[in-house]
């Protein structure tokens, strides 16, 4: 084989190799952040037989009053899961001083929760409520949760104190 022919063969093989990689590679692109092996769960939390609902409120904030309407807005987020096998969570209601201020039936992935419990069915447990609600005096207020399950059961979860400026 002449040198030129050998070069041509090498070039063709290299081109084919690249084409194969482009067509068949299942690896993620370089720009996508790789999943770290260090994130393996060391200890897994366990659901107790008496548990009905797990989760709660991660963060809550109350805005200042609207200068026109006097309404305030509330942002709260957290996660909830049902431990009742046949009754998933239907709705999360957020209460300010015991009065309903907002609710949601939309849930989003919380891989940290699924990982912490070693339960993939706990993944879709994130919730957030972002809403306007009525007038409220300035000062400290207690924000709690009521979780409604698909079987009609409701479970109250303890909350946090938030400051209305």
């Amino acid at each position, binding site marked *: 084989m002449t*040198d030129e022919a*050998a*070069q041509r063969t*090498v*070039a063709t093989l*290299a*081109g084919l*190799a*690249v084409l194969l*990689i*482009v*067509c068949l*590679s*299942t*690896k*993620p*692109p*370089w*720009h996508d*952040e*790789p999943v*770290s092996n*260090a994130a393996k769960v060391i200890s897994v939390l366990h659901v107790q037989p008496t548990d009905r609902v797990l989760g709660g409120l991660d*963060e*809550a*904030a*109350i*805005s*200042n*009053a*609207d*200068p*026109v*309407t006097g*309404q305030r*807005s*509330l*942002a*709260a*987020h957290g996660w909830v899961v049902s431990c009742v096998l046949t009754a998933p969570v239907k709705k999360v209601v957020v209460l300010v001083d015991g009065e309903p201020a907002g609710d949601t039936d*939309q849930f*989003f992935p919380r891989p940290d929760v699924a990982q912490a419990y070693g339960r993939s069915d706990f993944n879709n447990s*994130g919730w*957030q409520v*972002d*809403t*306007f609600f009525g007038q409220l*005096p*300035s*000062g400290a207020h207690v924000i709690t949760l009521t979780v409604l399950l698909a079987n009609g059961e409701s479970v109250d979860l303890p909350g946090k104190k*938030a*400051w209305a*400026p």
Partner: protein
Amino acid sequence: MSYTPVANVESRKAHWLSAVACRLDIITSVALIVASTPLASLLSKAPLPVAQLNVLDDSWRIDIIYKALSGVWLDRNVIFTYGPLYQLITAIPARLLGFSLKTFYLTGVVTLIWTTIVLTFSTAKVLLHSEPAWKRALFLVLVVGFWSPLEVRTSALLFFYAVFVACVARILRPHPGLLVRAAACAFLLILAFMLSADTGFYAAIALILILAVSAIVDWKSARNLIRLAQFGLLSLAGFALFGIGINVAMGDQPFGFRFLRDAYQIVSTYRWIEPVSMPSNSSRVLMWTLAAAALIYCTALLKKDFRSTTSPRWRVFLLSSPLVALVVLQSALVRPGWEHMVIGLFPIILFSLVVLLGTRVSSITRTSVCLLIAVGGTGLITGPVSWLRPHNVIANYSFHSRRESSTCSGIYVDGVCFDSTTFGVRHDATALQVTSDFLRQTTAPTDSVMVFPYQNLVGDAARRLVAGGVLQNYLIGGEYLTRRQIVGLETLRPRYGVYFLDWPGVYKVDDVSSFTRTPQVWFYMQRHYSAERQIAPGIIALVRDESRPGRIRQQPHMLSGTGGDFAVAEDPQTIDLGKISWPNDADFLKLTMTMHYPVYWKLLKPAEVIVIVQLADGSEKQAKVVLRPNTSNEVWVYPWGDEGLGGFFNPAPAGPQAVLQPAVVGIKIRVARFDWISVMPTRVSVSRAEAVSLQY
């Protein structure tokens, strides 16, 4: 030799094959451009489905395009990391198709891909000029299809570097054209500054390194040293001349060089306003990549490549390219999240591929081994970029299978349908929709608006110019940029504005409150605007109120016994400023403090600083702050929940402290290294601690 038709056909076939082989690099470039073009979407009139919304980055990307179409140019009217050349390139699709969010989401990435392909092709032409076209084609596919980040700055820098190497190598030979080549390099340097501030400085450093390396290699030749010195001086003079032209074009004084001063401000503040810690995967990839590159370079240097038979261009390249790659890595070391690490490592990866494919030897064995490393290594480490995957290329040209729906089941804004089920995207898209609707309804098309802190795209979606001297507030560090931002706002004095509170679910840049990051801009806003209403939870509509500056004033109260000079001996270290007596009506904590760092922090990055405010109810607030090293800084902290800051915009004279919040009882400062590149201060000086109340 007798003529036969068969021989003629064979000859023509061979001619065509040879022509294709000689132009394989150009054909590959065109093929990549075609593969990346979403033609079916471009021809579709339906709302564009978009699954991602990155409010912070999409805001600057969209805003610079809208500003370009409005005649507002980076470097001339507004300061930003990027420059007018980048603005010009990214605004081309909007000029051709009309501005809308749909145009941006459809063509924004494509513009970057096309530019990257052209720049990488040009780099290959220069650095692999003596290699066959198929090697350049292979290089192009490996770089653009696997390794290149989706941003133009680094690709442009590497092209500029390649031209610098070629020009410097050329002047070492007995060739005329010193002046022309120096002028070409000067012109590229100016282009680099027009592209972005960091590209400009990196390009200047690259040219200096190339000249220095060439001088060291040729130190025995007085003639070459003189030519290198002449070249350097001529390039500098050319840069000054082109710079004067830019000054005039930017409306600056001919010798003002404001574009250089602005670029310096942006580059010099980056190291202390945006440092973050290095994740473990970034650290690991950094080490492995540098080790692999070192191996490739050492092998190349030990082999024939560095003997006198090799061309000056190759010699200068082999010695200067790793230095340039290490310099460019600086940006990634300051902010080593994965997306920045990929950008920082790109030069050393590209240069390694040049070394592997540019062996310039006829040995088929060596060529094969180098190709195996380049192609095999790429295939083992990474997959192709998503736009090059066959199903996406097919989708770009699937005219019939495309879902042509004129309705949007998600959130519709300006031709785009945000149809993600992800909560964050729906939340941000809803905020974008209601806020842009509000701005469109309350302001005239010729009005400008103010947006705080960084969500500029709400103004663009409403077709309103976002005012300010600095594009987004998180870039502001130090007095110069603060002043430029306020001057920009004062020039246009927008009647309306929107204030996005630090609200749960809203991204806070590096967890620093937008008030603490840019207190002077916040106070400017608070003095000149009052709240009209809440547009959505956490989003306040502001209206300009010229009576406020005369009514509102700051009342400081010294907090005695809290100052001092504290030596830092541990990592982390918490400095207790002691118990304090907090006035009942105080709203803010203001610390005047200096972090004393050793001089080498400028090559690394400062430490993380957190002000811990202890409250009377037993709770505490940890406020991350950004401080310029070795300079006295004013640190402003709102001691309670940052969502309460909206109350300071109430039009009524009463401040937000109608009900007293728990008093501040103690202050601590926690200093810790971000990571192994971060430097601890030697001392922390707190010269003053004040409680400040706003009086109406």
